[in-house]
């Protein structure tokens, strides 16, 4: 598996976990603590994000939330910057890989 594929795989894993965190924790909560959705498989950084911001983020499948400094400039661009986190958008090949990965992903 190439570094690129591994990174996309990690990002999708983190996102899938975050969707679970949202399902479990969003009720009656203003904010959630989710995992950084970067491409580093060993990352365990977390991000505090409001439920509304997370819902908005999930409307676009090519967007991921990462900690400052965890963005990969060659495959994604920063679309939003907050003191807590960055929102990055996949571009080109990375965007296609995400769509492919989401289609292949076996979500139980």
């Amino acid at each position: 598996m190439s570094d690129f594929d591994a990174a996309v795989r990690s990002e999708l894993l983190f996102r899938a976990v975050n969707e679970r965190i949202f399902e479990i924790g969003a009720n009656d909560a203003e904010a959630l603590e989710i995992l950084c959705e970067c491409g580093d498989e060993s990352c365990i950084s977390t991000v505090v994000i409001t439920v509304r911001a997370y819902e908005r983020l999930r409307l676009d499948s090519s967007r991921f939330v990462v900690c400052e400094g965890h963005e990969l400039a060659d495959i994604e661009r920063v679309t939003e910057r907050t003191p807590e986190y960055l929102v990055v958008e996949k571009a080109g090949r990375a965007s296609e890989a995400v769509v492919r990965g989401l289609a292949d992903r076996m979500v139980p």
Partner: protein
Amino acid sequence: MGDDERLMQEHGRFVVAAARELQARRTLVVAEARAERRRGRRLRDVAAAARDRNLDLSWRLWSLMALPEPPSTIPLSWDVPRAASERLEAACVAAGECAEACAAALQGADGEERRTLASISGVAAYAADFGRVGDPDSRRALSLCVRVIESNSILLDGLGSTTDGALAASSTRRCAEECTRALAASYLEAEG
């Protein structure tokens, strides 16, 4: 200002100062108790390992006829090694229980505690489901689960004040242990 009022104010200030001092002392005592609890767990593990070694040596002595009677129990390490798939199943069960216990503890929690419990519950639920499906990525999910639980160990140690919190904390520890064993068994099986 009358004497009574001044007295009352002085008394109020004294009470506030005493409360602050007590609060600071309580924080210290709680931190010490948590550290002691962690130390206790480590010592318990060391004691279990020593007892296991002792039993193993007793069995060897008996086999050399140096002891008249065999020991009444066998060391834990003699347990039949379980296959990686069995370990994975046990880890998934523990992760599922952990997810449920943390979700149940959300009711009485708020702030950082609540966010962390929801976070662990989500990770554990994901790990449980991925393992059950038998996905090749299950190892990554279990590993993530262990890392997230371990990174929050200090907060989890402080959850003992409510029943749900204590149950959640103990289920996270069990989950991390089972996931670690499943990962170790899986790597050993892959290597050998």
